[in-house]
């Protein structure tokens, strides 16, 4: 597509529920990233995919968070047993692969705002 698409744009859930957030990157971008932006803070790195594999998931806060990218395009961020502290805007970005010109120029989606009650 023309840009990075994220769905849903807003998600309100109850503590303890399971949530999935979807990201559809720019066609041809092999690198995909998830960042989390809490109120009043800059985006914080969660996970990086190069192709289908998670090359770096060191930013995931704990084992309740998991992300997949089974076909090297669309990615899903999954959060189990949500907690109020998970409330944030979850940003997805894509770029050309590491080493390519412009690899660090990320194109971000508009984000998925998660509210855990």
């Amino acid at each position, binding site marked *: 597509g023309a840009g990075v698409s994220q769905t849903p744009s807003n998600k309100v859930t109850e503590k303890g529920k399971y949530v999935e957030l979807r990201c559809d990157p720019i066609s041809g971008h092999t690198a995909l990233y998830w960042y989390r932006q809490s109120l009043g803070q*800059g985006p914080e790195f969660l996970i*990086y995919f190069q192709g289908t594999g998670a090359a770096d998931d060191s930013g995931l806060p704990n084992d309740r968070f998991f992300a997949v990218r089974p076909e090297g395009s669309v990615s899903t961020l999954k959060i189990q047993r949500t907690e109020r502290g998970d409330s944030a805007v979850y940003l997805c970005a894509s770029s050309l692969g*590491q080493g390519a010109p412009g690899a*660090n120029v990320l194109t971000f*989606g508009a984000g998925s705002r998660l509210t855990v009650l």
Partner: protein
Amino acid sequence: AQSVAQPEDQVNVAEGNPLTVKCTYSVSGNPYLFWYVQYPNRGLQFLLKYITGDNLVKGSYGFEAEFNKSQTSFHLKKPSALVSDSALYFCAVRDIPPNDYKLSFGAGTTVTVRA
């Protein structure tokens, strides 16, 4: 660890006046620095980057940034601000290899340009 700091939470300027958004950095090795802008309900948009070369980097929408090694700064500038420049601005730094896919962002500076 690579990091950036944005010392101002908010910057207010009148339309037509110069705009400066400050950023300082702390890095190991050569810094790779970026500016992104976030408009309401929109994703972050890339403005410009410094990799090497000229200390004055030109970017999108008339913005430029000045890299200053002695002051470890990378301030964003625009000679004449527009009301439409009102947004949230983030400075970012790239991590060192092999983790050079990862960006660390500052907390952001809210810019308000009044008519």
